[in-house]
């Protein structure tokens, strides 16, 4: 059980004259064993923040820590991520079993571990299948199993339901909730959909133009939003579901 912290994290892209600041001095704490929902529109920097946390994008300033120590980039990775599009996040040339096994740490019984993980995400007996044989929801569950293979204590879920059909979304959200409870995971749950974030999160952070504009317990943020953007977001979302 670990705590994920962002301290003054900035990410800038481009070079001379063309500099774009995607993430601008973000301070955010995901307390151990809790779910923090990060909501924002496309281009707000939320996905860049996630990619920066796992080292896919270099930081321009600040640091990301796990229990005060930098996120390790070698050996066992205690921080894992699930991606948005289950159609591009699984290698089409590898079986489900091989994909997951690759992420299992050395020195474990890989076969048994893969079987255990697939059972965990409710996909038993699919080890020899290829991604093309699975539906979008099933693929997303495989991606979750792969993320869990490294026995992470912290998980980043980046828009994991937005590429899925509406009838499938619910199953994936339920799975994330169950896993969080049984494994006591720390989760940073990223979505553009406030209703989805509200459903899974204890704490909600609102990101707008690279900055966290509001952050607090879910009920407080939703009942009494302080930032004008949060209010607009809330009004837009509530308008959709009177």
């Amino acid at each position, binding site marked *: 059980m670990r705590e994920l912290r962002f301290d003054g994290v900035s990410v800038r892209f481009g070079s001379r004259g063309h500099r774009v600041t995607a993430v601008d001095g973000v301070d955010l704490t995901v307390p151990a064993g809790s779910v923090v929902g990060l909501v924002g*529109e496309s281009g707000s920097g939320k996905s860049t923040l996630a*990619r920066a946390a796992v*080292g*896919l994008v270099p930081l321009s300033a600040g640091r990301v820590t796990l229990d005060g120590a930098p996120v390790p980039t*070698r*050996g*066992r*990775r205690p*921080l*894992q*991520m699930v*991606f*948005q*599009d289950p159609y*591009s*996040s*699984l*290698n*089409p*040339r*590898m079986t489900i079993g091989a*994909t997951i096994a*690759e*992420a299992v740490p050395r020195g474990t019984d890989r076969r048994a571990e893969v079987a255990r993980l697939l059972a965990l995400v409710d996909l038993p007996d699919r080890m020899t299948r290829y991604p093309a044989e699975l*539906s*979008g*929801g*099933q693929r997303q569950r495989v*991606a979750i199993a*792969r*993320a869990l*293979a*490294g026995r992470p204590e912290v998980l980043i879920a980046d828009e994991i339901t937005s590429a899925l*059909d*509406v*009838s*499938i*979304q*619910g*199953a994936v*959200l*339920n799975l994330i*909730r169950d896993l969080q409870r049984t494994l006591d995971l720390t989760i940073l749950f990223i979505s*553009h*959909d*406030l*209703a*989805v974030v*509200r*459903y899974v999160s204890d704490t909600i952070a609102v990101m707008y133009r690279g900055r966290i504009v509001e952050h607090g317990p879910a009920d407080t943020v939703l009942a009494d939003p302080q930032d004008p*953007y949060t209010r*607009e*977001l809330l009004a*837009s*979302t*509530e*308008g*959709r*579901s*009177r």
Partner: protein
Amino acid sequence: MGRVLRTPLGAAAAGTVAVVLLLAVLAPVLWTDAANAVDTGQIQQGASADHWAGTDSLGRDIFFRVLVATRLSVQLALLATALGVAVGLLLGTAPLLLGARAGRVITAAVHIAVAFPGLLLALFFAVIFGVGTTGGLLAIGFALAPGFARLTHTMVAGVAGLDYVAAARIAGVGRLRVLFRHVLPNVAEPLVVNATVAAGNALLAFAGLSFLGLGVQPPDYDWGRLLGEGLGAIYLHPEAALAPGVAVVVAGLAFNLFGEAIAKGVGLERRLGTSTSRFRRRPRVAPDPDDSAMLVVENLSVGFPGTTPVRGVSFSMRRGDAVGIVGESGSGKSLTALAVSRLVEEPGIVEAERLSFLGADLRAGEHRRLLGTSLAMVFQDPMTSFNPTMRIGRQLSEVARHHEGMDRRAAMARAVDRLAAVRLSDPERRARQYPHEFSGGMRQRAMIGMGLMGKPALIVADEPTTALDVTVQRQVLELLASIRAADDVAILLISHDITVVEQVCDRVLVMYAGRIVEDLPAAELRTGARHPYTKALLAAVPDMTTDRELPLTVIPGRPADPANLPPGCAFAPRCPLADARCATEDPELVENAGARVACWHADVPAEVIS
């Protein structure tokens, strides 16, 4: 590979390649003596029964020489290709292995080298490595490398940007393993295809080099040399030039076509899916026979070879109506919208018992003017729905110019006016801009403005907000609602998001697997839905009032595949209420108290389901 051989072209190319390779192995063994036999009595003869392609300046048989030359020609081509591919692969994958900085230098160098045509590079290297077989081999190999490097680099970069590579890196997989396990297998097919085509090109290039006298030197000979020798005597007996020429073309073409055939076969495999044709006539379900109906759709079907993604859809709309069609991907909702707007293209076939708009029968004739001015379309992706090379103002004004014969100035004035009407600030400046200078929300407004250039009676909006942010979504939906209110314009809104439809429309059609399964007033959606699919859809999506302590309702299974439907109700495999009857008989859409539903169990109360 089997698929490649089954096409006539692929089989012919593969056969020719096999023959060429066989000749390369056997010809020198069998006919070297015949090819080298000097006969001073038969110098520079034309074709005869003894010498099918005549003789050269030493009286040697040209036909046998061409056959024997197969080995050297093919060998050199394959070696040069191997060299080019190896160097190209190294350079092309170096950025991935060496990291960003070293990679950028290599990529820049390749970029410069690629700008120079292969022949020029080959000549350059031929000077350095010297005239002769080895020099030519190195020259052509290195000349092939930059092109192959760039191809490799482009494809590797494409795959390396995908999430599964990111996921592997996060999981701690090393760079080499990422390259060999995740990247190369996924770019192997196009690389093999291109290497095959490159072998053909290397063969031709080597022939060219030898033809110029820069490649193979006497006493060795390949096809290019034979060709060069033959050209000098083309007046006396053209066979001497034509025989090696034909050999070069046939062998080069065989490699090229074989590559193309592999490429086609690979493409085919992706496209071919299992499909069973099903085109059933549905009994007519009477829609509102009201004469004031502006749009009447009766028993509409859209068929493609192998599938019928829209089956027997019927509904009607009056002026000012707002009807929403809800469904998941593959439900046929977008195709229904395109069919209504007469925008389904071949090979799609639209059939309907009635399809009338403002009294005109849309099944016959083009109705350009009527549809161009009275029916407006708004598409899902505002980023790709405008022509990128034309200014926004011109894209709007051409509607008025074409359909109403307005002059340029008047049409542009109206375009600016309509951009203002969809609440774009500074419309005159906006009209002069290109689509890429607009944000997504602005483009969608401009798209709606384009529909307002005429006097629309109906706006068909296909997922108009899906690509937009929530806050922008609301503004676009409000814009549509205000246009509807102001001018009594009807709106047909297609969406996967039931809450969006609920917000804008007064009637909702729920589609599943190409059929309407429920049709009910939007106000009754939450309370009066009777089809288990509608109810499950409402419960599966969390909203701001969902109880966070309870798990969400789950619809098991996957959405129906229109190409492979079950015999009975298409929803039966996922339905908690399904029984034997549901599995065999497809329920009809039955009208009852202003709503329609297609379900054998429509009267089971909601509690049983969730």
